């Protein structure tokens, strides 16, 4: 599977760049090995491992540490080992197979690989094929019926679904869309379990993603506070002008004064 962000959603997809990935892989051993030995040896790869990126890769080929969160053998048939691995972003599964082969003493290589999840976005969630997409687009263009399109495409908010959420008042939305920080008085509803420094999704009361930022206060502190910056905004998603401008820029002040005179 491959999560693809369309147009505006491109601004959000980067938050998944460094999150964990899950794959199902088929490894072929180069000689017969007892199944139990294979299973026990593979267990040794759970945790932090060293990997040197392969020749055919786009990163610098220096030894680096990657974490394997889980590694489960699903099936062994002769020299074929089917397994599921959950790992840190940037782990080379081909390399992992090679290294398992070295430790087993017989050699091994990767035959097939399929990604099953990028963070919380899994294969079970609305998996669509290129054919599905082209069909849905045809029906929309030809008959103006968007039912299939709406089935195959999910709102970009799904990308940030794993984050704690801060819902802001309509009057705070446009300031954030213009790059302002989120101050306490702009907050309407929030997740109860936010810790300081957590990455949070800033959303409207309709559930639209406005921005992604870092909490400068915990939920408890936000509830108690009357002012101050609650969330430092790192990435603005919403276009300016969607919600009304309820704030005054320094440029506006003279005009207001003029109007008062």
């Amino acid at each position: 599977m491959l999560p693809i962000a369309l147009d505006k959603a491109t601004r959000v997809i980067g938050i998944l760049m460094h999150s964990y990935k899950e794959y199902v892989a088929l490894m072929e051993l180069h000689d017969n090995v007892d199944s139990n030995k294979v299973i026990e040896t593979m267990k040794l790869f759970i945790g932090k491992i060293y990997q040197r990126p392969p020749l055919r890769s786009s990163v610098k080929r220096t030894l680096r540490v990657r974490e394997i969160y889980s590694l489960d053998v699903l099936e062994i048939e002769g020299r074929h080992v089917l397994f599921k691995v959950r790992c840190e972003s940037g782990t080379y599964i081909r390399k992992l197979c090679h290294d398992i082969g070295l430790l087993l003493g017989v050699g091994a290589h990767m035959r097939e690989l399929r990604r099953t999840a990028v963070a919380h976005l899994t294969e079970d969630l609305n998996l669509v094929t290129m054919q599905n997409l082209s069909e849905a687009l045809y029906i929309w263009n030809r008959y103006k019926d968007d039912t299939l399109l709406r089935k195959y495409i999910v709102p970009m908010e799904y990308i940030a679904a794993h984050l704690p959420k801060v819902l802001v008042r309509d009057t705070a939305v446009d300031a954030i869309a213009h790059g302002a920080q989120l101050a306490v008085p702009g907050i309407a509803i929030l997740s109860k379990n936010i810790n300081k420094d957590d990455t949070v999704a800033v959303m409207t009361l309709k559930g639209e993603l406005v921005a992604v930022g870092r909490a400068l206060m915990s939920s408890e502190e936000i509830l108690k506070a009357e002012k101050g910056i609650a969330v430092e905004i790192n990435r603005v998603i919403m276009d300016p002008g969607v919600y009304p401008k309820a704030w005054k820029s320094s440029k506006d002040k003279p005009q207001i004064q003029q109007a008062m005179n």
Partner: protein
Amino acid sequence: MKEKGLEFIRTLDRIAGLNQEYVVKIDEDTNEKYGYLPYERPTELYIRSGLIVLDKPPGPTSHEVVAWVKKMFGLEKAGHGGTLEPSPM
């Protein structure tokens, strides 16, 4: 209006396997004049604010597949959430 918004937020939490509680700081509703409930965006905007979880064919690279999708929908931008590397193999 905000009940519908909260319902969507709970859908997001469910997708991510979160069981979050929410607390209200200021009890205020949202005006339907501005923005949209994500599932009720007009078609063009719905597409341009969308995510596709693609069953990627094994041959082409992620970048090639993204380029096709971009062309299909006539979009200026599209990006994927794979790895930085061209191929994790």
